[in-house]
């Protein structure tokens, strides 16, 4: 059964979902629960798709262009949008998903509701490699001072600001980098499925991407991975039990989700990675440090 799961489709779709989950996670880590990820996924997929299909670009530079478009799109949306909080912000990001979807439907150049076909080039190896590289970068982040700045901004925004942390910068940066990740996921996904259309990037998709993180846990980089893998593969596992069960898999899946949110609302993996432990044994003699400081 497990062997059946290890095919190209599942590797690509799971990998893409992990990258999307990390995008949501980056944004959420800085205090923004976003339902705009499908929009950025669409922008990435369409920008890169037009470049590869209509202009014959290779996949790598097209992917970079798609990510850049999403990053700047994230900045443009982020600066005005991140002034609001909580429910309002969710509504704003939901609005972004709707607008981008409707916007693409009305651009004849990219096929309107018909979408674009002919995207190709993504291989399971590229997706797996991307997951490892992005994961590595996130791992570095989670042990860097920036992680603490993010955590502080999320835990107590005004105290963090009074310590000299530019909250707007931190939140917009987190949102825009998250958007770029979603864009990259869109590029990979689009160039694997060959055909993309606006209906692939609706609000339901955005909600799913947010659920990866809500289910898995928001406090460390592994929670989103867990959520993305489970949500992607559970339907596939369910399929193994025959079509009778498959009809109920959505019901089963959302049932589990409701139970989980009731009893473990912080997500399955909710531990916070300690960014740095004190080197108490290797501590330099403090007196010498004090003397240095007194001089300056």
């Amino acid at each position, binding site marked *: 059964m497990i062997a059946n799961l290890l095919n190209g489709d599942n590797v690509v779709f799971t990998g893409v979902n992990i990258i999307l989950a990390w995008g949501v996670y980056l944004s959420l880590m800085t205090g923004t629960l976003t339902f705009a990820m499908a929009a950025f996924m669409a922008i990435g997929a369409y920008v890169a798709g037009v470049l590869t299909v209509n202009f014959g670009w290779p996949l790598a530079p097209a992917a970079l262009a798609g990510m850049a478009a999403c990053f700047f799109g994230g900045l443009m949306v982020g600066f005005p949008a991140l002034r609001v909080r909580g429910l309002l912000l969710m509504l704003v990001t939901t609005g972004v998903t709707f607008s981008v979807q409707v916007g693409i439907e009305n651009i004849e150049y990219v096929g309107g509701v018909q979408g674009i076909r002919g995207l190709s080039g993504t291989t399971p190896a590229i997706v797996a490699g991307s997951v490892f590289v992005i994961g590595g970068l996130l791992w570095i982040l989670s042990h860097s001072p920036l992680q603490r700045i993010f*955590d502080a901004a999320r*835990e107590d925004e005004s105290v963090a600001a009074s310590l000299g*942390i530019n909250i707007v910068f931190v939140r917009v940066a987190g949102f825009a980098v998250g958007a770029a990740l979603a864009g990259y996921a869109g590029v990979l996904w689009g160039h694997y499925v060959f055909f993309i259309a606006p209906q692939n990037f609706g609000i339901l998709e955005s909600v799913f991407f947010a659920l990866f993180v809500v289910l898995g846990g928001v406090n460390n980089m592994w929670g989103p991975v867990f959520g993305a893998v489970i949500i992607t593969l559970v339907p596939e596992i369910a399929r193994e039990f025959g079509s009778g069960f498959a009809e109920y898999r959505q019901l089963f899946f959302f049932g589990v989700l409701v139970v989980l949110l009731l009893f473990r609302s912080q997500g399955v993996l909710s531990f916070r990675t*300690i960014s740095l432990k004190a080197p*108490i044994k290797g501590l330099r003699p403090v007196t010498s440090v004090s003397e240095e400081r007194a001089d300056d």
Partner: protein
Amino acid sequence: MTDSGPETNPPGTLDGTGKPVLEIDSLTKAFGGIQAIDGVSLTVNDGEILGIVGPNGAGKTVLINMVSGFYRPTSGSIRFNGQKIDGLPLHKVGRLGIARTFQNIRLFNRMTALENVLTAIKQHTTHPILAALAFAPSRQGIDEAMELLDLMGLTARANQGAGELPYGDARRLEIARALATKPKLLLLDEPAAGMNEQETGELIEDIRKVRNRLDAIALIEHDMTLIRALSDRIIAMNYGKIVAEGSSKEVLSHPEVVEAYLGTDEEEDG
């Protein structure tokens, strides 16, 4: 300050230049119809510890909230080292060199004690992108943070969650975190609230220890032991106005101050 021997602070012996660090001019703050601050003017001078006393609701915390950028004044001006700071965003006030602690302790409870201090290290807060690139967190930042923890006697607690710290240690950690921003002016909002006599005594020693790292300290407190021990000068407030100013002896025996405090049980304050 560095070689003054036993660190007692008799009024009048300031170590700084004595020029104003903080200048507040006819400041007001209204919440709806309530005038929380009603025309306050004061200065905090280089080298001094200014004590601010007054009954609950006198506007002391509102004042500190305005100086640190949490509230915007309704009118009046606040200058820090000559620069107008009212209306500046919070992080700019913080970067200019004003740090504070909170009446109700506000640590990052999900982090360890060390992480709380590291979060505030100035080089990281001002250059967050460089902070991400410094993968092996710079040795200097850790040394700085550990030195501050050590100064506050918290070395052994470095890896403990801030949310698990006993009350007194949490207060000390807040001071260490504030110092990590390399402030020039430190605002302490009721640092001794909820402490017993012995803890207050330790806190007095701790504040004396950090004094030489700062240009000036402004201190809100109900605990008169701490106020007397530390303040070079005292301002008494009531109903959003300054009612008395001077040495601790003068102010604490001032009739209006006595009247304001009369019938107030100090132990219940804060």
